[in-house]
């Protein structure tokens, strides 16, 4: 929840920022263009004891590290599993039908455990829980991820994703954590299976032979969550703390590259070979900290204003009352109400458009060297 980040700005600064971001084109405090991300440095494979790891540092000093560890776990057989008493018949029914496959894996959400740790906050703090739920939701939304964790009918991998924010949260940590998780998952390798069929699994000891969880030659990639905000008619990506403090609406949008789907030929024609087919996994509105900001007092109702002429204060009184609910230019007022549907639709559209920010971010992450 973004509002937890205590933003300490004066109403004058907030009004100035809001005016600056409402211009066309918006002038951001650090001069970036609306869809420009802050430069960041990324590396993977930093933790040799994990199956996959990544570390990302933003230019403002915030840093996150993600480690992925996997453990083999026995798949509990469900009491309603029709295939229990069939020797090998369960596999025939699976075929290419995704439907049956997902019902076989009942509690498959439990195969992924994601924890987020933010320094200075308890792990059951609502903001931390919101972040953890958002990130795990994106991962589990399509059900395809847990398919990769299946070893055979009786065994599966349980994946532990531990996300650590190293620096104290200066700005809303969601984009940082999401990019780091994406990279860590990209670099995750699971030992190569040497057993066959349904026997107890045993693996190749050679780590170099371990395949990637997301094979490089296939198109599927883990999801990434982008934070996007709107001020007036302007859509701004990768907002900094000051920009969030004046946002009208903030959305966290999770997208992923769709895996090769067999059968759906219609859409393939539209798509060019190198293009990405994105799919939308989840959208959540984030409570902007702008709602918790102190309001400015317009000069008309400011008792510390214009005491020079005592007579004028009498005249100002009726005006003062009228001005209370209206917006006065130059005076900051925390936003009330919600966002128009059209604005939210435009935000989502901007994220998903071909060649837009989501594509660029995924391309840039793709280019990171995996060790």
């Amino acid at each position, binding site marked *: 929840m973004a509002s937890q980040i205590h933003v300490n700005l*004066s109403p004058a600064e907030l009004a100035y920022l809001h005016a600056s971001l409402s211009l066309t084109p918006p002038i951001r405090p650090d*001069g970036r263009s609306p869809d420009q991300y802050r430069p960041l440095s990324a590396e993977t494979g930093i933790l040799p004891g994990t199956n996959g790891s990544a570390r990302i540092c933003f230019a403002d000093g915030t840093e996150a590290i993600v480690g992925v560890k996997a453990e083999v776990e026995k798949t509990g057989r469900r009491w309603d599993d029709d295939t229990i008493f069939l020797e090998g018949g369960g596999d025939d029914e699976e075929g290419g039908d995704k439907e049956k496959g997902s019902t076989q894996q009942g509690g498959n959400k439990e195969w992924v455990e994601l924890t987020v740790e933010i320094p200075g906050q308890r792990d059951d703090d609502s903001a931390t829980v919101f972040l953890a739920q958002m990130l795990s939701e994106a991962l589990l939304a399509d059900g395809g991820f847990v398919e990769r964790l299946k070893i055979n009918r009786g065994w599966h991998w349980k994946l532990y994703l531990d996300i650590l924010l190293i620096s104290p949260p200066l700005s809303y940590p969601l984009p940082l954590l999401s990019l780091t998780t994406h990279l860590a998952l990209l670099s995750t390798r699971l030992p190569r299976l040497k057993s066959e069929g349904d026997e107890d699994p045993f693996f190749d000891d050679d780590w170099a032979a371990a395949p990637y969880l997301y094979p490089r030659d296939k198109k599927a990639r883990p999801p990434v969550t982008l934070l996007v905000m709107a001020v007036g008619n302007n859509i701004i990506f990768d907002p900094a703390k000051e920009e969030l403090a004046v946002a009208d609406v903030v959305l966290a949008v999770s997208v992923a590259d769709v895996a090769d789907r067999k059968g759906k030929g219609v859409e393939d024609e539209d798509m060019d070979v190198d293009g990405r087919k994105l799919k939308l996994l989840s959208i959540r509105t984030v409570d902007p900290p702008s709602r918790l900001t102190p309001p400015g007092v317009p000069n008309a109702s400011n*008792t*510390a204003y214009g005491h020079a002429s005592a007579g004028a204060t009498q005249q100002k009184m009726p005006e003062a009352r009228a001005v209370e609910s209206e917006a*006065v230019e130059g*005076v900051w007022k925390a936003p009330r109400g919600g966002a128009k549907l059209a604005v939210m639709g435009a935000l989502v559209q901007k994220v998903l458009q071909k060649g837009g920010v989501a594509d660029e971010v995924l391309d840039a992450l793709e280019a990171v060297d995996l060790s």
Partner: protein
Amino acid sequence: MPITIHPPKPPRPLISDNLPSDDSDSDSDTSIGGVDLGLPPKKRLTQFTSSPYTGIVTPGEIITPDPQWMRGHGTYIPPQTTDITSSLAGTITRTNKLISVRPLRARYTPEVGDLVVGRIVEVQAKRWRVDVGSTQLASLPLSAINLPGGILRKRTETDELQIRTFFAEGDLLVAEVQQLFQDGGAVLHTRSLKYGKLRNGAFVAVSGMGGGGGVVRSRRQAWTMEGANGAGQIDVCLGVNGYVWISKHVETPAELEGGGKTAAGITNMEENVSATMYSSQNDKVDTETMREIARLRGVITALVENGLRVDEEMLNRGYHEAVEMAMVDWNGPDDIYLGGERGEMLAAALTGK
């Protein structure tokens, strides 16, 4: 390119210039395996007697045993000796007979007379607690501010009850350090026309005082400069504590009346200025001025990220350099982004000159 991902910077090679250089080179070349612990001999700078030695010291290093020197900040004298020993890691500075050690990076320590930009964090009974980036919160008593209505207005109980109408939590103000408490906390005052609540602009925090980077104490901390590309005049206020305020210059009514001359009687000036002193309503700032303010902010950030000092001269040069860079850049003069590589280019251009 919306997003640029760099590989992490490789660690900087260790520069060992404190070691007596002759032995270490030959040793490291010929040694096969193992680590050459070329420890320097215990430093006793016996050559310090007359000529000053400016260099980097660490806590515990003896600077000089000569009792003629007086010790300043960052040093101590162990009992039963007269050796001035450093207690910080930093550079030695000498002013006349005073030796002090200035740390490379430290929190701001207030001195009497400093101009600081601070943010109100707490409102207490008859005073405010202000964050000035120091180890302690500074305090601003209610008696130390200009009450609207003239300098001779008596402070009443209503003022104490309405204390939030003057400064509320989160407000930015510029003030001067009037005195220091024993524990190092500062007491501020805004009893001058040039101090007070800040508006019509943007705030930047520059961290790290002392050493090469950060805001340095100089002759002028606040000045007005001309913005380029059609912007108006821009006020820059560099607080010594590293907090900077950049805003649009607003003509005070006195200046307007006097046609730019700062005449007018004292009482008139008080009344004219105090009308807007505690206002949190911004005046209209036009687009060009906003752009130039953002550019200035970028220049300050670039100077700090590249370890250059931030004062009036560097800022003026940096700003003109940035405007020129934007002119020749293919994005046009509207491009004000100065992070990352462009900031490094700017710093290189400034140090090269």
